[in-house]
């Protein structure tokens, strides 16, 4: 095995890692706000991918152009999920919370299957395609574009929650709901906004994924599992740390697949997760 092969793998892993990081950021944001893990996160991603697909199939809109639409649709879905389901279980036992979002996942996945069948779909001939050669490494342009856009979205999210007034209100709500409420923050609105933004993140990531990935009802499963791992690696509720978590997952997946066995690449990621949380139960950057 040559150095080039390893480098090539590391680059692909890194690119995928940025996409995982954005998916994970949405999950982490929601968790930070109300300690709820959205087990329908993968299904949100799937719906974002179908939004991009149908925009392309019906109106010939490239995923890059329909990206704002996917983000908006998912934002709305997030807010609706909060208003329709989550708001009612904020004080419920953890089991009820887990199964509310699990039920939603089963529902959305079957809905997609019911409406659109189980066929794999692919967006043919996207605007950005092909690959470039850079210092002997080949980089797929759709992957490059997706990862850069995800990184940019991640940066924007970080700027939003740390620099804007609304973002700070969001953080305040995450830290102490009662105190934030007493300071005049409309926590109810913050929760809805958090779900909107959290889902909006997968709106962006899902849309970009469709330029190089198949679309089918179960597509969210694997991505969501990797996102849970990325979030837990970083530490639940710590949004910036999910960048490190996402990149780690991307690198381990590709390098593990290359160095050990392709069939075991996800198993290696999960094993890494187990090792990390055993050593630091709160994740790499989490507080317990």
């Amino acid at each position, binding site marked *: 095995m040559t150095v080039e092969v390893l480098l090539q793998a590391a680059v692909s892993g890194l690119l995928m890692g940025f996409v995982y990081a954005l998916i994970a950021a949405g999950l982490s944001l929601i*968790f930070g706000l109300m300690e709820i*893990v959205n087990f329908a996160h993968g299904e949100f991603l799937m719906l974002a991918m179908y939004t991009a697909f149908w925009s392309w199939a019906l109106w010939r809109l490239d995923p890059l152009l329909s990206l704002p639409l996917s983000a908006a649709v998912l934002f709305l879905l997030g807010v609706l999920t909060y208003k329709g*389901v989550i708001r*009612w*279980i904020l004080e*419920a*036992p*953890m*089991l*009820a*919370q*887990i*199964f*509310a979002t*699990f*039920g*939603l*996942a*089963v*529902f*959305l*996945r*079957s*809905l997609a*299957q*019911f409406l659109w*069948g*189980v066929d794999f779909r692919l967006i043919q001939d996207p605007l950005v395609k092909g690959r470039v050669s850079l210092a002997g490494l080949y980089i797929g342009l759709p992957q490059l574009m997706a990862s850069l856009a995800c990184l940019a979205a991640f940066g924007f999210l970080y700027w939003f929650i740390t620099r804007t007034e609304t973002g700070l209100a969001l953080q305040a709500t995450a830290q102490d709901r009662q105190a934030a409420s007493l300071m005049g923050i409309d926590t109810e609105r913050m929760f809805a906004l958090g779900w909107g933004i959290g889902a909006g993140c997968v709106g962006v990531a899902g849309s970009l994924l469709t330029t190089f990935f198949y679309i089918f*009802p179960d597509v969210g*499963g694997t991505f969501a*599992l990797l996102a*849970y*791992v990325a979030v*837990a690696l970083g530490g*639940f509720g710590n949004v910036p740390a999910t960048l490190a978590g996402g990149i780690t997952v991307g690198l381990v997946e590709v390098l593990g697949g290359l160095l050990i*066995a392709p*069939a*075991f690449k*996800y*198993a290696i990621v*999960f*094993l890494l*997760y*187990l090792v990390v*949380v*055993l050593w630091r*139960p*709160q*994740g790499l950057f989490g507080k317990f």
Partner: protein
Amino acid sequence: MARPARGTTVRWLAASALLAALLAFPFVFTRPFPRHVMISIFLYAMLAQAWNILAGYCGQISLGHAVFFGIGAYTSTLLVRHAALTPWLGMLAGAAVAGLVSQAIGFPVFRLRGHYFAIATIAVGEIVQTLFINWDWAGGARGLFVPLQRPDRFVHFQFHESKQNYYFVSLAFLALALGLARLLERSRAGYYFRAIREDQEAAASLGVDVTRYKQLAMGISAMLTALGGSFYAQYILFIDPESVFPLSLSILICLIAVLGGVGTLWGPLLGAAVLVPLSEGTRVLLGGGGKALDLLIYGGLIVVIAVVQPGGLIALLRRPWGRTS
């Protein structure tokens, strides 16, 4: 204090009537389909009760129970194929292996709490599934057939000619799971389980060996689940990693318990009695065809139950009698 006594009598009568009806069922309904539905109810109720012992009573929400189901299915099937061992013993071997594996898994994951624990159990499930997909001796991704024995013989655990014996075996398994849960409810271990569920620190400070009792709950739960897996393999006669180790199975098992009522004796049975016929019925009536209408309905149902009645269906039944426990 007169009311509980009357309640007890009513419950005894109801339980006896239910048992009589269940014993009479296969003699009234002789066609394969109703028997199949009942067998599925018993199997899933048993699995949900097994999960309930760990998650409902002890508060450790495992989302990886398919691991133990699959181990049960594979151990008994591999022993039939490679050692011609009767599944009656194979299932005990499967339970033993699942028990050992559960202790090995529990040792690290019980250090985790809440969502970290739940996601760790998913991770374990995915790892084990990957191992079996790539394990050629165990059939790999292609799976394994259980050799068909003709004619049906008790020693081979095959009763395909009428399904009747499958009915009684699965009913017995369910009775075993319910009996164990009932026993645990009244035992010292059961009280410790609930103490751990309510407040782990408080339990520990009162001298409960928290890790030991979590391991105990995990072991009992895993062994019961493995028995269910062995039964499934003998009933369906084909297993592969996709059908016995998937995350969706782990989730289905908990959904049933949650739907019925977590941490209660009759909840898992109630959940299975509602969900399994719903699933089988929609499958038959509306046609499969990959339309997933059954899943659509019960996904929605789970959301509604979780939001409106987190205590499960059993909480709805209890209200009229004014029982609160």
